[in-house]
């Protein structure tokens, strides 16, 4: 008698644990989103849906010039953003975490400092760095001039604009992965580290062979959040390069492109909820498939390592 009752209780317990989160998510993410995604299958007459058009909006975005070219260009930029952030932002975060792990004098204040920009908004960060990178008043070019380099107008040059925004993003967010890595490293325990040191392992060996495998769960979190963040990238490029991904679309990414199609740019564009929603559907499918696969691999790796 006791066992079935306990199993029944267990079911209720699990359901109770999940209910609040599921309820809020369904009401305020799933339902409105499904309603919005329905737009993807409609043509629009101004702001009002005009008729069901099946997959026509998808076909336009993927196969019709100039839209197809813009879609590909934006996707390419998202990929660059992802790779660059993994290397620059997260690589640096990993090093900083290791440096902080050593608990050298002043490590506490450094911990506070490295995380400080994370609390600022993208609006502030974007605005500040626009000024820092300004071709006439910017400190970056002023500093470069001191060592005889004639800095480009970073945000106005098609070759440097995306890189400059990626750098700004890394400046803004590096503290977050750094602390996730640090939390992971601190869980390893002093004994394990000491033991490895006694075995004659140097910092590099320690970093590669002891710490790296043991922070695998932290890596999974950082990788996944960076991946999804890179492909949903919106706020910072919006503040620094505007809705059109200036200059000449050199910083256009999928998030900007979808928003611009759905809501128009303030000064030049028209709104088309149909195409904007269609692009959002495609982005979601892409992200879901790729991160689903990546998570499987990363989880297996966590267990193997």
């Amino acid at each position: 008698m006791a066992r079935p009752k306990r199993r029944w209780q267990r079911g209720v317990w699990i359901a109770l644990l999940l209910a609040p989160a599921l309820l809020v998510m369904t009401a305020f993410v799933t339902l409105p989103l499904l309603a919005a995604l329905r737009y993807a299958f409609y043509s629009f007459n101004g702001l009002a849906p005009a008729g069901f058009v099946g997959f026509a909006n998808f076909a336009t975005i993927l196969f019709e010039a100039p839209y197809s070219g813009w879609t590909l260009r934006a996707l390419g930029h998202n990929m660059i953003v992802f790779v660059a952030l993994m290397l620059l932002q997260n690589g640096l975060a990993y090093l900083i975490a290791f440096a902080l792990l050593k608990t050298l004098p002043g490590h506490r204040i450094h911990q506070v400092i490295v995380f400080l920009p994370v609390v600022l908004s993208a609006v502030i960060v974007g605005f500040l760095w626009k000024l820092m990178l300004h071709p006439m008043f910017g400190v970056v070019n002023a500093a470069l001039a001191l060592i005889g380099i004639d800095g480009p107008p970073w945000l106005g040059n098609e070759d440097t604009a995306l890189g400059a925004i990626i750098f700004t993003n890394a400046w803004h967010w590096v503290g977050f992965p750094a602390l996730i890595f640090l939390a992971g490293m601190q869980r390893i325990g002093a004994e394990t580290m000491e033991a490895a040191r006694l075995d004659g392992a140097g910092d590099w060996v320690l970093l590669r062979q002891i710490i790296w495998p043991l922070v695998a769960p932290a890596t999974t979190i950082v990788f996944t959040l960076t991946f999804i963040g890179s492909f949903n990238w919106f706020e910072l490029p919006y503040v620094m390069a505007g809705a059109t991904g200036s200059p000449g679309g050199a910083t256009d990414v999928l998030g900007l492109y979808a928003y611009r199609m759905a809501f128009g740019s303030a000064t030049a564009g028209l709104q088309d909820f149909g195409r904007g929603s269609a692009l959002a559907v495609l982005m979601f499918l892409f992200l879901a498939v790729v991160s689903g696969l990546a998570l499987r691999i990363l989880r297996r790796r966590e267990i193997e390592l």
Partner: protein
Amino acid sequence: MVKQRMQRLALMATAAWGMALGAAQAGEVTFWTWRQEDKAVYTDLFADFTKANPGITVKFEAFPNENYNTIVSTALAGGKGADVLHVRAYGGLEALAKANYLVPLSTTNVPELKNLPADALGSESLRADGKVYAVSLAGQTLGILINKDLFAKAGVAVPTDWASFIAASKALKAKNITPIANGTATPWMDAVFHSVFANPFLGPQFVADVLAGKATFEDKRFVDATAKLLELRDFMPAGFTGVDYATSQQLFSTGRAAMFVGGSFEIGPFRRANPKLNMDFIAPPGPKGAGLVSRFFDSGFAINAKSEHQADATKLVRWLATPAFAAKAAEKLGNISSLSSVTNPDPLLGKVAKLNATAMPYIMLVHFRYEAPTGSDLLQDGVQKMMAGTMTAAEVGATVTQGIAKYYVPFQKK
């Protein structure tokens, strides 16, 4: 019992959080705009309205320009939004009107429409049904603002044709004055820049040919006029590809650059930023003598079809079409009123109005902003690239033509 108690509890909870529905007071009309910087002027103007219409007050609500489309389209789609809306002209107006979000205006519900000239009415009409949906506020003129003091200091005469414009720019630069304040980092400014300098070379005949389907933007006239812009790169600020709109404004208003290529709508803000600025507004240089300025109507006032205060909202919109409002608004906002009967006492704006007598349309806004991809989107992208040296003028013409060909039939056969 329990149910009742729950309801009371829920009611109390919502009350504690503050519910706004139905909270709008009787006799209050809400007004939405993206013109945050005009708040003081509108507050003053709406006080006049309340004086003329006792019992009706206007609640002014401004939103950031970049988010205004999103906020308005969301609220209207949800059956809400302000009673009276500041709307854009041409394609921007059509997007709202087509969806039946706005009340059509006629001389029956707004007799004051007769105060407006036909082209102003046209800018706020839906082409499909020919009905007017908003009261046009102002006309804008694109040309060149100059700092007279800097010209005098450098001993340079105000240029008229292209050759003298280049000579003057060279002379200013030799005196270490940045001749042109504009950069190319803000895309919509590139479309303005193009219109100002290319239109005098294009001429009205080109516009007529495009509208008649006889010419595309691959036409030699368009390509040559567009390529003219490249000669100006030497006279723009260092690193101009990274200089945005706000910086350009600063450069001109603080007297660091001698010329600002832009619209008559800049006059007011420049005066506010620097009352001592000694400005003039001149026509752009043409091949021989002064060229034609570009002109358009820029915004209007519309009634939300779902407004619960139709009568009061109509009263407000009627008042917004009166010469009394238009004269004061034109003076305070530094605009040229859409009402032809209203003249601006400001000598500078008076001069702009005179230039308007022979003007060309701001082509992309007036004719190619009704469908996506808009002519403005395509042109500003192309000009930005051309000025940065990654696209040729011929390529700009080709991209613009191909993009517009998606919906403009005369471009499709080629």
